[in-house]
């Protein structure tokens, strides 16, 4: 049947459709719904929390799944302990894949259509940058739990006014602390090195990590030269060329913010090419990978824990919470928790403590704005010590840096307890209202 005719038929149908639409609507029917104000009593309905992490794609295995596991675990535990002010938590877990436009739509749906009390999640910096503004636009509470970019809460130029988003938060520190921490650690333990190099993924995450690390190194150890910077694409499966290039340049230490499969692939292939015999690596997000790679993961590598998120720190005798968290997680999922797990814990408990704090003030279930006010300046215990969410709505954390060492106790290298460094939050975070890069540049 020719298109011409098809089209003609098609019209008659549309005519009917349009007419009926008109009849249904009538000139001034309908009207858009307003966002309902919460009442001062405590509802009995469960708390609906939208939880968004990568369930598809390369980031699912290293971050998405562990994060998702922890969210489910914590929600279950909280509910077992009677929920938040007696209200049970109901998680709506969604996939973060599908492109940023999909995420914007999804987040809007969660807030407007599914009427969630809060949205927790987001691993990719792109998602965070796209989604957090929605919080203020639609008056919903959004807590970013794992994305790294410092740009998220920073303004165009320092000093900038805070908070950037009234209802948008990040319950962790940004990538600044990892790289500043690494630089401080190197200055302390390897003061005599001559040259460094970098291998970072070729997108904002890698670029920012290297930028901050390089700036910090220039300030701390001006004599050190940068001999090579490589930018492999995300999800690269062959690093041989990069490894050779690095070995050709012969730096003392190579900085890397590689994550997930990329980090493991690079390490495996580097091991195969005798890389570690000559060069020391400094992983800004290395914490999970000794466990992933196993026994043969090289010793003596510098590893930063994206904060102090390490299953052996704080030591279990000092921190029963960490002990419980590690054991509970290991019991459920057969692995020791990695930093995304700790981040997930921080997000969901930040919400819990904020609600409880606000409820004390207002007596009854707090409104979203009141929860946001309570979350600003909130300090609460986490398995990795205490976490503070500052006025810029960004978490600040101490940072733990160590050196890998094989021990009989574990089937993979752990961070040598004798050479463990914790840099306090105040030393690795830029002050409120100052851009991290400007802050590092202002060092004396």
């Amino acid at each position: 049947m020719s298109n011409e005719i098809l089209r003609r038929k098609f019209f008659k149908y549309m005519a009917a459709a349009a007419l009926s639409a008109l009849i249904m609507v009538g000139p001034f029917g309908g009207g858009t719904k307003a966002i309902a104000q919460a009442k001062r009593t405590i509802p009995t309905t469960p708390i609906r929390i939208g939880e968004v992490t990568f369930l598809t794609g390369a980031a699912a295995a290293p971050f998405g799944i562990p994060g998702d596991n922890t969210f489910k675990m914590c929600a279950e535990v909280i509910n077992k302990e009677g929920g938040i002010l007696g209200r049970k938590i109901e998680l709506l877990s969604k996939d973060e894949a599908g492109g940023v436009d999909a995420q914007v739509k999804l987040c809007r749906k969660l807030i407007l259509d599914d009427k969630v009390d809060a949205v927790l999640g987001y691993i990719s910096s792109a998602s965070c940058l796209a989604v957090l503004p929605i919080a203020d636009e639609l008056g919903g509470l959004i807590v970013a739990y794992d994305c790294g970019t410092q740009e998220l809460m920073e303004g165009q130029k320092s000093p900038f006014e805070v908070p950037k988003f009234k209802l948008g938060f990040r319950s962790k520190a940004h990538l600044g602390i990892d790289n500043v921490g690494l630089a401080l650690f190197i200055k302390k333990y390897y003061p005599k090195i001559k040259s460094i190099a970098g291998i970072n993924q070729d997108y904002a995450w890698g670029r920012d990590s290297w930028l901050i690390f390089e700036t910090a190194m220039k300030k701390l150890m001006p004599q050190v030269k940068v001999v090579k910077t490589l930018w492999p694409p995300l999800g690269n499966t062959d690093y041989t060329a990069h490894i050779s290039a690095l070995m050709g340049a012969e730096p003392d230490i190579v900085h890397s913010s590689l994550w997930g499969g990329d980090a493991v692939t690079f390490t495996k292939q580097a091991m195969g090419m005798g890389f570690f015999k000559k060069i020391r690596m400094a992983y800004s997000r290395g914490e999970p990978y000794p466990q992933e790679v196993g026994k043969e993961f090289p010793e003596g590598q510098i590893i930063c824990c994206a904060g102090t998120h390490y299953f052996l720190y704080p030591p279990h005798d000092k921190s029963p919470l960490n002990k419980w968290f590690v054991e509970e997680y290991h019991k459920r999922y057969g692995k020791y928790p990695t930093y995304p797990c700790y981040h997930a814990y921080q997000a969901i408990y930040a919400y819990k403590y904020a609600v409880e704090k606000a409820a004390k003030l207002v007596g009854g279930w707090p409104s979203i704005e009141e929860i946001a006010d309570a979350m600003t300046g909130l300090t609460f215990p986490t398995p990795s010590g205490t976490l503070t969410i500052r006025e810029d709505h960004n978490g600040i954390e101490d940072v733990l840096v160590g050196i890998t060492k094989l021990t009989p106790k574990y089937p993979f290298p752990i961070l040598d307890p004798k050479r463990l460094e914790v840099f306090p939050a105040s030393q690795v975070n830029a002050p409120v209202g100052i851009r991290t890069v400007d802050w590092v540049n202002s060092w004396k």
Partner: protein
Amino acid sequence: MWVVYTLNGLYFGALLFLISLGLNIILGVMGILNLAHGSLYAIGAFMAAWTIIAVGMKAPAFLIYLCLLSGFVLAGIVGWLMEKSLIRAMYNRTLEYQLLLTFGALLLLEDVIKMIWGGQAYYASAPFDLLGKINILGNVYPNYFLFVMAIAIVAGLLIWIFMAKTRLGIMLRAVSLDREMATGLGLNIGGLSTFAFVLGSALAGLAGALVIPTTPALLGIGMEPLILAFIVVVVGGLGSLKGALVGALLVGLTRSFGIAIFPEIELPLLFLIAGIILVAKPQGLFGR
């Protein structure tokens, strides 16, 4: 260092060769660009990883290397199913439908993989570790990469002999040269197409399996190689087996030396070269 750069280029080229060879066989014989090719690569990767983990480290070495073939086989089977169930219905449909169908298959397979193997990563580096390293002019180099090159060369040779000497191969070439004429000669186009599709898919699977010992099997692992395979195919010429070889080596070596010399423009460099070749020779190096 230059020796190693070259070896790296050859190694990466070898992998690309296997992928784009499969893509080009399908393209040549059936005139279908299989957008789901990357997913078949991923299936090969997951299958190999899974079997290697299943037999475990203590198994005899030859068994572990046999596991690599499982990827080749499973991808072939999936390819066969795809051809029989979906592609078969597309023979006398127009291009846009064929492409969209394989696009749909791509989305579908990504999630099927997730359903079967779940979201976690599979680490199966046994074959890589077992082979150890050798010393080339003072540079340590893993034997496994040499092993991969050897496999690629063998596969390439076999395909070449097959295409040049065997009756089936000659029929396949006839179809890819002129479908109408071949039909006129009374060749069994259907059967030949199925064969080509299965072979192409299996090659993608083999490439996936060969990568596994050096990198964990993750969701979406097939995406990046697919893009590079596209570049190879465009540069080498659509449907040309020789093109696949030269294109793959070109891309592999360009990449290796590009990273060593101008690390800043690794990927754009590839596209740039592809662009220049296309402007100079629109059909690609060996395109018809």
